[in-house]
């Protein structure tokens, strides 16, 4: 299945599309198990092998080429496919911020983004923040100010905090709090998180 700039040949429903267009070509290129599945008219089981879309992503400066089902979110792709489990699933509905990553430098909730929407983009996750052994100043500041307890929201908080500083929303504690309100911390480390961001925004911490 193609994935860019197509205007023709894809107007049919999914099953019709499978049956009509790519079935024949696909079978020629597939392992016998799939052919057998098709022969058994196991439409759904067959579909599983072909309903993937090629995906080309850069994550933490490393290029990944793969094929994914369109319904796979960026979050699940990072966690389950790439095993980059630093990015957390807290609600899966854009309501907690635990899944925050940077896409082309901007913070987003990876749970509400399909992996395929990020074709060609540069993703940074918590695993890509440190420079080798040297922590990013925000990571060091979170340790210094104890900006977490259980640690589960922490990667999202830190990715969000780095973006908050980059965006320039650090003119007061109140502004930091407002722009960090998309990241829920159930352990209640908020004041410590603000302390960490204040320090980094003033350029006061070296890892």
């Amino acid at each position, binding site marked *: 299945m193609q994935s860019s700039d197509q205007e023709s040949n894809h107007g049919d429903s999914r099953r019709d599309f499978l049956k009509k267009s790519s079935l024949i070509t696909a079978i020629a290129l597939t392992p016998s198990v799939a052919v057998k599945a098709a022969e058994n008219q196991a439409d759904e*089981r067959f579909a599983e092998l072909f309903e993937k879309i090629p995906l080309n992503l850069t994550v933490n400066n490393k290029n990944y080429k793969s094929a994914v089902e369109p319904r796979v979110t960026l979050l699940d792709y990072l966690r389950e496919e790439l095993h980059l489990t630093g990015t957390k699933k807290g609600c899966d509905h854009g*309501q907690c911020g635990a899944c925050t990553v940077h896409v082309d430098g901007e913070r987003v909730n990876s749970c509400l983004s399909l992996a395929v929407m990020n074709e060609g983009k540069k993703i940074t996750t918590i695993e890509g923040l*440190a420079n080798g052994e040297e*922590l990013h100043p925000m990571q060091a500041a979170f340790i210094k100010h104890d900006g977490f307890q259980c640690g589960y929201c922490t990667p999202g908080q830190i990715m969000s905090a780095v973006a908050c500083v980059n965006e320039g929303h650090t003119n007061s504690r109140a502004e930091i709090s407002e722009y960090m309100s998309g990241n829920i911390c159930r352990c209640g480390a908020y004041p410590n998180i603000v302390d960490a961001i204040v320090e980094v925004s003033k350029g006061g911490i070296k890892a």
Partner: protein
Amino acid sequence: MEKRVLKDANDRVDGIYKVTGKAKYFAEYELPGLTYGVLVTSTITKGKITSLDTKAAEKAPGVVSVISHLNKPSAPAYEQEGGSPFKIFYTDKIFFNGQPIAIVVANTFERATYAASLVKVTYAKEDFNTDFEKAVTDVKAKKLQGQPEYKRGVENAYKTAEVKIEAKYHLPIETHNPMELHGIIADWRPNNQVTVYAKTQGVKATQGTIANVFKIPIENIQVNSEFVGGGFGMALRTWPLEIATVMASKHIAKPVKLVITRMQMFTMVGNRPAAVQTIGLGANKDGTLTGITHRAFGETSAYENFTEGVVNMAKFMYQCDNVNTQYTVVPVDLGVPIWMRGPGEATGAFALESAIDEMAHALDMDPLEFRIKNDPEKDQQRNKPFSDKNIKEAYRVGAQKIGWNERKNKPGSLIDGQWKYGFGVSIGVFNANRGRASVKGILKADGTLVLQSATSDIGPGTGTGMTLIASKLLGIPGDKIKFELGDSSLPPAPSQGGSATLSTVGSAVNDVCVSLKSTIAELAANSNMDATSNFVDVLKKNNLPQIEVTKQSQAGKEREDYSMYSFSIHFVKVKVHSLTGVVKVDKIVSVGDSGSIVSPKTARSQMVGGAVGGVGMALHEESIIDHRYGRYINNNFADYHVPVNADIPEIEVHFINKPDPYINPMGAKGMGEIALIGFSAAVANAVFNATGKRIRTLPITPDKVLAG
């Protein structure tokens, strides 16, 4: 031992893993052949499953199996239906809406999710009630005894007092909602060897439960739970969904991972039970308390019973010769509750500490002065001295820090434009528990110390506290000490709950370190070395790569002689908008009186976190059910409000930091619960002081303030 540098001895020992994404939570372990489970849940509230059609689901792409009551594998403890606990997949009965009734296993999460939507279920419905407030008033409802009635002196003495107040307080259901979704990875291998990666506050408890359900030897079961993304009580038991996953793994002979949804977090992993409480207080005009009556109804489920310490505090926290309490639990057709941070004591403290404020107002007394006047010299309930209690000092320090002298006793006196300001205070108290735990210590010639115990860290900083205890006793820097936990094969320790871990496990760490120290001293003496020689030199001289010791520790007779509690005083300043009813917490001062502070940084964070939880309890949190359907209507993080960053002001924490001479070798008491207990009352009292409106139903949302 891996390289790990602590810039500050008080930094969290596992901080480096948490800030880099390297900390592995249960769902993040890679197992060969891992499959994904997704639950099918009931859409009715009470009744029976009449049919469960899995054909379409089983045919869907990637599906390995669908397990339900129709095809579950053997779980010997469940063979006899009925009784408690609830036996998942061994019944066709529905006890609550959202009850897990099948688990669909597929080779990807997306495929399992889709296939679960294809399972078709039909039911025979029965009448139900999910409305706790209705059940309380319904005389026909089956009422269960929650706790024996308590009476000291004259019953209901408040009724004949010079000044009396009587008031009713309502708490809704709250949901723990730790950030990490619940679930488990279960890997049932041939010969009944089971490994699980769990989200649990007690690896030994999880191990025991699985052994018991499946009747396999406890040694066959390995439970791993190194990092836990918050629990707040909800991970204190092994839930049916976890057993379901183990069953699924047994059934398909492959590892199965289940991570439930945020919506499912509301129905199947417990909640803080709703409560209705009545408090009667009587006092002389001079402010001497003469009678306390505390009656409480708490929510429980129809299929399992749950009780907690809602009325405990009334029995000893104030000097009063006449006290009576009653606690009754009332079943509704919902999932069974479980302790939530501060548990029943937090529920009770909201009522009692609001009532104390109401009485102070009735007496026209400063509520702080009223509390100090009725501060007990000894525990009247147990007729014992307190092991350690510095409440008056805590009051004084906290009052000074919050600026209590700005407070006016007359409500509504502090106004700035549309904002009205008010101050509130409350006390929190919780039993200073100490259980029994074992710790193994391995002191190595490379200069490092490894400590091991099957305890947990759901966030408070267990490893950090234990490292600091050992570091102080043995003079080894924290980054040369590794405290291993969250592994059922380690020496046993109780579950992390009831603010007991530092006291319980810390005591065993203490004993291990004392023992290691004396062994080193003996070895030094035997090899003609100076008694103060470095242990590395001593071990090397003796050609020992390492020495090991395991110690079990528990409380002694001192607990019979003294009444042991941790205390907190919460001071809150709020502002209330007179047109919109919005309440903003402006300043928080929490004072902890919980013995010595072992780990100052994490202790402070725990108090801060408790205050944040307290703001949620006071202003935001309520799990709402549509009782016509028995379904939660706000079962997500957008509609179930927990505080966000912008809700929280700067929080000042102060510790009395005096050792409790009797509790344990460190003189330290737990503070996880007291950080939250009472906090909601301080907010309600501050709202009253700001507006003159006494809100007795939590949470204090803008609509309630406007209605006042």
